[in-house]
C-alpha cells in the first residue's frame, strides 16, 4: 500500500529535488517536469520572460515560443492536456495572424469573433494569474503556520479514567468486515464520459445512406446529400462517411473554389458489394489514460 506517497509525488506534493524523467507517472507529471503547469502557466511564464505586461501584451510575440513548447512535448500527451494547449495555441495563432493583416479595422464577424477570443483568452489568463498569486499567499501562510504547533496532548491519566468504558458491539466478524471495507482501495474519483462521446449518429449507418443516394444519382453536391437533415451531427457523420469512401476510392470529390460547392461523384461501380466503411468514428472513446496508472 505504498501507493499514497507515489500518488502524492505524482499528483500534489513537491517532487524530489531531481525529478526523474523516467518516472512512471502520468502525463500530468511529465508536463510539470518541463516546469510549467498547463497552458496558462506556460503563457504567463513566456510573457514574464519578455517582461511584458500581461494586460497589454501583444500575444503574438509569445505565440512562436508557445508553439515551440507544444512541439517539444512530443507525442506523449494525453488528449486532456493537449486539448487545452491546442485551444490556447489556436487562439494565439489567430491573434498573430490578425496582426499580420494590413487592416486593423473591425469589419466583419470574423474580426469580432477574434476580438472575443482574445478577450476570453485574456480573461482566463488574468483569472489564472490571480489564483496563482493567491497560491503564493497560501504557500507563505502555510509555511508560517507550520512553525506553530497546536497542543494536542490529550488527557491526563486521571481525566482519561473518567471516560466511559468503550463498547465495541459489532463482534469480531463485524470488525473484520469493517477492516476489509476500510482497507479496500478507494475508487478513484472519475466522471463517466461515455454518454458524452456516445455516437448518437453512426458514420457507418450514414455511409449506407450516402452510398445508396450516390449510386442512384451518380453525382451530387454535398449540399444535396445533406439536404434532408438539419442535425449537425448527421451532417458531420455524412462528411466523415465521404472521407472514408474517398479513401476507398469509391467517390471522387471536386471543389472548384475554396468554400465553393463540393461535388461528389460515385466511382464505386454498380456492383452490390458496398465499399468498406470502418467503425473508426463509431467506437467509444479510449479509456482515460488515468486508469493505467492505478
Amino acid at each position, binding site marked *: 500500500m505504498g501507493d499514497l506517497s507515489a500518488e502524492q509525488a505524482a499528483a*500534489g506534493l513537491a517532487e524530489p529535488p531531481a525529478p526523474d524523467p523516467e518516472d512512471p507517472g*502520468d502525463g500530468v507529471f511529465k508536463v510539470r517536469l518541463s516546469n510549467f503547469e498547463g497552458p*496558462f502557466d506556460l503563457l504567463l511564464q513566456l510573457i514574464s520572460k519578455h517582461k511584458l505586461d500581461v494586460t497589454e501584451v501583444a500575444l503574438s510575440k509569445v505565440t512562436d515560443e508557445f508553439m515551440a513548447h507544444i512541439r517539444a512535448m512530443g507525442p506523449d500527451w494525453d488528449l486532456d492536456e493537449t486539448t487545452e494547449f491546442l485551444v490556447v495555441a489556436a487562439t494565439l495563432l489567430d491573434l498573430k495572424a490578425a496582426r499580420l493583416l494590413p487592416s486593423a479595422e473591425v469589419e466583419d464577424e470574423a474580426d469580432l469573433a477574434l476580438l472575443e477570443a482574445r478577450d476570453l483568452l485574456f480573461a482566463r489568463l488574468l483569472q489564472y494569474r490571480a*489564483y496563482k498569486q493567491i497560491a503564493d499567499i497560501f504557500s507563505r*501562510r502555510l509555511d508560517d503556520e507550520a512553525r506553530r504547533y497546536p*497542543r494536542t496532548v490529550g488527557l491526563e491519566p486521571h*481525566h482519561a479514567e473518567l471516560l466511559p468504558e468503550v463498547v465495541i458491539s459489532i463482534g469480531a466478524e463485524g470488525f473484520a468486515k469493517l477492516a476489509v471495507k476500510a482497507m479496500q482501495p478507494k475508487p478513484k474519483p472519475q466522471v463517466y*464520459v461515455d454518454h458524452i462521446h456516445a455516437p448518437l449518429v453512426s458514420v457507418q449507418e450514414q455511409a449506407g445512406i450516402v452510398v445508396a443516394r450516390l449510386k442512384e444519382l451518380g453525382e451530387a453536391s454535398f449540399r444535396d446529400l445533406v439536404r434532408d437533415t438539419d442535425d449537425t451531427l448527421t451532417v458531420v457523420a455524412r462528411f466523415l462517411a465521404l472521407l472514408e469512401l474517398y479513401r476507398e476510392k469509391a467517390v471522387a470529390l471536386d471543389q472548384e473554389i475554396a468554400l465553393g460547392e463540393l461535388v461528389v461523384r460515385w466511382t464505386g461501380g454498380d456492383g452490390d458489394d458496398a465499399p468498406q466503411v470502418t467503425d473508426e468514428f463509431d467506437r467509444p472513446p479510449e479509456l482515460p489514460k*488515468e486508469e493505467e496508472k492505478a
Partner: protein
Amino acid sequence: MSEETTELPAGLRGVADLDLKPALEAMLMVVDEPATEEHLAKLLERPKRQIARALRELADEYLTQGRGFELRFVAGGWRFYTRPEYAAAVERLVLEGQTARLTQAALETLAVVAYRQPVSRSRVSAVRGVNCDGVMRTLLQRGLIEEEGTEPETGAILYRTTNYFLERMGLRGLDELPELAPFLPEAEAIEAETQEGVPSFDPDAPDSEDADDN
C-alpha cells in the same frame, strides 16, 4: 465534539465559582481541536461575551509576558499553539507531524477551491487550464478539501475546503481569506464571462463544465 449538553454525572463538582481565566486555561490544556466560545461558555456556565473577553485577555498576557506558547482563535475556536519563534526548539522534539509542503499545482488548486467553493473538479480544471483530478485527490487525502453534495444540473461532485484547511492556514474562517478582487482586474466582468460556459472553448455548453473532466 457534539454541542449538546449531556447529563452530567451527579457527583460532578460545580464550575460556577471557579475563576474564569484559569478555568479556561485548564480546559484549553486538554482540548485537541479548537474550542468554540459557545462551547466553553456553556460548560463554564457564563455568558459567551465574558468568555470571549477573558480569552482575548489571556492571549494578550501570554504575548506581553513573552511566553513560548500563544492562545489563538483559529477555525472558529481557541487553542494553544507554540509560538513560531520557537519552532526550532519544538522541531527538535516532534519529527512526526511535520507536514510535507504542497506543490505549486496543489496550492493553485487549493486556491481555486477556496474561492469558488462549492466547486466541481471540472470547474477547477477549467480555471487552471489543466486536468486537476490527481491534485484534487491529494487535497482530499490530506483532508484539506472535502465533498459537499453535487451540482443539481450535472450531477458533478462539488468540493469545499475543510476546517482542517482553516487550521493549517491559521484562519478564523473563510471570510479571512484575502480579497480576490485586487488580484483580478475587472474581476466581475471575467466572472460573468467564464460563468457562461466559455463558448469558443467549449462547443458543448452548457454541459461544457464536465466535458473536459475525464
